């Protein structure tokens, strides 16, 4: 019964899709507002990567919201899976005999971990020149920490420090926005010099915000994995 009803719903939605998609031709030029970004983006923001300049300059408010969403997810996950410290100790004792990973895995991950962190940092520092940016870099850093969790199940990051780094980098983002409000009257304006395009030190506030986002996302995703692994065994 449930299956039949849902298939009917799906068919209705599919018909809607077909009608709607037939009005949007694939691969045709329908760029409207974005023309402005493509033509004036480099001059106005100094970033070579137009996606970056859209993400952080023209639509920077969305990115602030996106960072907030991830922050909410990390905080909410911590709240939902929260276990009192005392109970958690007991559980840890019970789980003491977690099996170690093999030698090859341990050595390999110890070798690769700094390289992965370096690569993540490269990705978010070069966000305005090459594809990538804060979020991607942060996810790579979090993957590095995930690798360490997998290879060494008993080691943990320091939650307090990572939480502090998280809120500090969030504050940096909001603070830069407020500085823009002070200097030029608009929230999240680019108030720094734009530099020469296609060099590392260019594009005003974009690299700073991307570094902040990179740290924030990295620590948040690591915190999510840590909470999932540690709490509520």
């Amino acid at each position, binding site marked *: 019964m*449930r299956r039949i009803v849902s298939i009917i719903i799906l068919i209705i939605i*599919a018909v809607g899709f077909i009608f709607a998609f037939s009005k949007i031709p*694939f*691969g045709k030029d329908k760029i409207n507002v974005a023309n402005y970004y*493509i*033509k004036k983006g480099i001059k106005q923001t100094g970033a*070579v990567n137009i*996606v970056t300049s859209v993400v952080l300059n023209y639509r920077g408010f969305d990115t602030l919201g996106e960072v907030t969403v991830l922050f909410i997810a990390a905080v909410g996950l911590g709240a939902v899976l929260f276990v009192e410290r005392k109970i958690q100790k007991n559980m840890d004792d019970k789980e003491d005999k977690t099996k170690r990973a093999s030698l090859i895995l341990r050595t390999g991950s110890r070798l690769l971990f700094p390289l992965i962190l370096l690569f993540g940092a490269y990705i978010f520092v070069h966000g305005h020149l090459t594809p990538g940016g804060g*979020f991607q870099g942060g996810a790579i850093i979090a993957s590095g920490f995930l690798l360490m969790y997998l290879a060494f199940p008993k080691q943990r990051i320091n939650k307090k420090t990572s939480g502090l780094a998280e809120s500090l980098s969030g504050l940096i983002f909001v603070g830069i926005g407020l500085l823009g409000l002070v200097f030029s009257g608009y929230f999240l304006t680019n108030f720094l010099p734009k530099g020469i395009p*296609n060099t590392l030190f260019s594009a005003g506030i974009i690299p700073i915000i991307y570094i902040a986002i990179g740290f924030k996302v990295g620590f948040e995703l690591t915190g999510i994995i840590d909470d999932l692994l540690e709490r509520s065994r």
Partner: protein
Amino acid sequence: MSGIYNWMYYIASGGLILIGLYIVLVKTNLIKIVIGLNFIDTGINILLICIGYVRGRTAPIFSRPGISPANVVDPVPQALVLTAIVIGVAVLALALSIVIKVYQHNKTLNVTKIKGLKW
């Protein structure tokens, strides 16, 4: 034959969205439902990107000389999808944590056996 070329990305995104919805509506396992939500997100991302695609143009990154502004695809959907991916990951993590909590209370993942989840 050119019809299928014009429609293939719409087929991909619409197909993923419909499969995801089917999983959410019909399947009874909670983790599978979360997988379905993930598929819906992915499908929407493909839809947005292929709306912004223009045939024969390149990515909107002027990293080397010789790329003219008339020759790049639409950057706005890419920016939107970046945001949408992050939101998808956030929802996924939160959903899985709640699934774990539900399992601890009920010792089952089957929706039909959990009293508060029947609909």
